């Protein structure tokens, strides 16, 4: 397959063929492509109905892996903002 690359809110989202020497753990989806955000592999799997979920963002499901990666980026931004707010409140 040809790699698929997108830029979303300044983050690089990429789908590409897994390297031949990928560890079995990462190749659990068989011939599934590898998902990367900012060059970091993102583990994911496929549910019985065919939709995708990310290991670290497991309860938002989509049949479009790139769209799911975008929502994960949005979630991470919001989560970081919440944690900063909680931290600042605890320090105040």
């Amino acid at each position: 397959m040809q790699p698929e690359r997108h830029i979303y809110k300044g983050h690089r989202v990429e789908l590409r063929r897994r390297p031949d020497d990928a560890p079995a753990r990462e190749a659990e989806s068989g011939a599934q492509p590898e998902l990367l955000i900012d060059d970091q592999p993102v583990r994911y799997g496929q549910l019985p109905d065919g939709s995708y979920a990310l290991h670290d963002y497991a309860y938002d499901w989509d049949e479009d892996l790139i769209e799911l990666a975008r929502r994960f980026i949005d979630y991470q931004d919001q989560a970081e903002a919440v944690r900063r707010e909680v931290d600042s409140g605890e320090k105040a």
Partner: protein
Amino acid sequence: MGIRKNYRSLTALERDRFVQALFHVKSTGFIDQFAQIHAQHFFHNIHRSSQFLPWHREMLLRFERALREFHADITIPYWDSTVDRSPSDPLWNNSFLGQFNSAWGLNRALGAGGPLPTQQQVEANQGRDDYDTFWRELENPIHNRPHVWVGGVMGDVASPGDPVFYLHHCWIDLLWARWQREHPDAPFVSSGPGVGLDDPLMEWPDRTPAQVLNHRALGYEYDVLDPPARGRKLVWHHRDSGETQIWQMDGHQLVRRATVVGEDGVNPAFVGLPFEIVGVSDLDGDGRADLVWHHRDTGETQSWFMDGHQLLRRATVLGEDGNPAFVGLPFEIVGVGEG
């Protein structure tokens, strides 16, 4: 029979006991083991399949049993996320589940991944007529959203590593039990091969959905589905043996009988003359019938606070000055009332 109730209904003792039990199952490695099991099977029929609800019911049952090794009276409380929707709710107090965030490195971000499900969504879901439609909608969005709303560990495949997982799934299990009560004739519908009524559950192949359909048969009830019976008991006392029996009635039909046991929950609490039962009433307002005894010779009056046929605690009636109020003949108790 254990009664699972809303976490807001826990007494201070029950809440503290539950927290201590959580620390206990963390120290034994049980919580981490459950998180690993959940992560291992996440994509393999425990979600997005007709076994989603049975599998998690079995999981909660096993978790509850582990908690009960710490204390026999523990039941898993539930979090109704259509009601408790704020990070400032007591669920997240540092004396309750809040403390686990830093203690266990859960990395929560409460509210970042909103919104939570609404009561309108839950009620619409409860109205679905067939199991296939019901569980799909209950799982997503009603079940999924609180996972995302809490975030951190609760939002990843190893979500049972966060104790709020169990309170959340207890509520999901309650919603399934409520739907089952309202749709007693709706059959279990398999979503595909290997996930039918008699197919083995992942991880626990000796268990099937058929074995977990009836939650009462598994030894627990829900406070809002199975409220304690009021005014449907007969209380007998055997003057010679001292045995007290509780008869649970349905109209004039005896449903079951049980001998009153003492605080240890095992041994019968035999009480003979000159003690006599002089009243049955809900003395502490917990919805359960309690017993009032009177000692004819000493004039002592004793309250027995009951849970069904088990004596939870007993106390001598005190006067305004804090000392036992002894009252004898010719006074007699002729009635015990509420309000």
